[in-house]
């Protein structure tokens, strides 16, 4: 079965420090991979995607993600976290005709 895992329910990081939110996938073939962010009482917003090509993908708000095929991972990163980055982050894979979402990781950036 196709699945996306986010092994950490919660990630805490101090403002200004680098952050990483982890994602691994179990999808056959070559999936398209995405990261979304959800702020309170809002829908999910698209951050970035990996389709093909360069394994390091840059997206909105200074976020980037690294695709690693051998480890089937697609970790989200940011060099310097902001308090305003605090939100719920979802990794997703598009396969077939459907998006499969991970369970989400709550990021808290502490001032």
């Amino acid at each position: 079965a196709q699945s996306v895992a986010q092994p950490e329910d919660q990630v805490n990081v101090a403002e200004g420090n680098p952050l990483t939110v982890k994602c691994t996938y179990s999808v056959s073939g070559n999936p398209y991979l995405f990261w979304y962010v959800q702020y309170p009482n809002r829908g999910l917003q698209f951050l970035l995607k990996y389709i093909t090509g360069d394994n390091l993908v840059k997206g909105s708000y200074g976020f980037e993600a690294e695709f690693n095929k051998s480890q089937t991972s697609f970790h989200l990163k940011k060099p310097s976290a902001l308090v305003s980055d605090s939100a719920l982050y979802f990794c997703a894979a598009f396969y077939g005709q459907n998006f499969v979402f991970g369970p989400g990781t709550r990021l808290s950036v502490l001032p």
Partner: protein
Amino acid sequence: DTAVSQTPKYLVTQMGNDKSIKCEQNLGHDTMYWYKQDSKKFLKIMFSYNNKELIINETVPNRFSPKSPDKAHLNLHINSLELGDSAVYFCASSHARQGNSPLHFGNGTRLTVT
């Protein structure tokens, strides 16, 4: 301009009632979805329509019925509401034929069944 809009934002109703949630997108996308987000924030696909044709129908009670009058609208009708239906329901759209097209979400409808 709101790309994906859904109404109402909040819906409080009693068990046994029938209710509808409306969704409209002005992005020209060919595919629309309904997702359910539970209290633990898990997102689960419910339905997907491509050009008014049902393409995904996950295991949901048949009390839930989607209706797509045109490719810009996908409404969700729920019959005989139950306590367990309480959740946030999100509408989304994309160019599904192009797998590299991200989903665009509405802001959700918080359904509370009492």
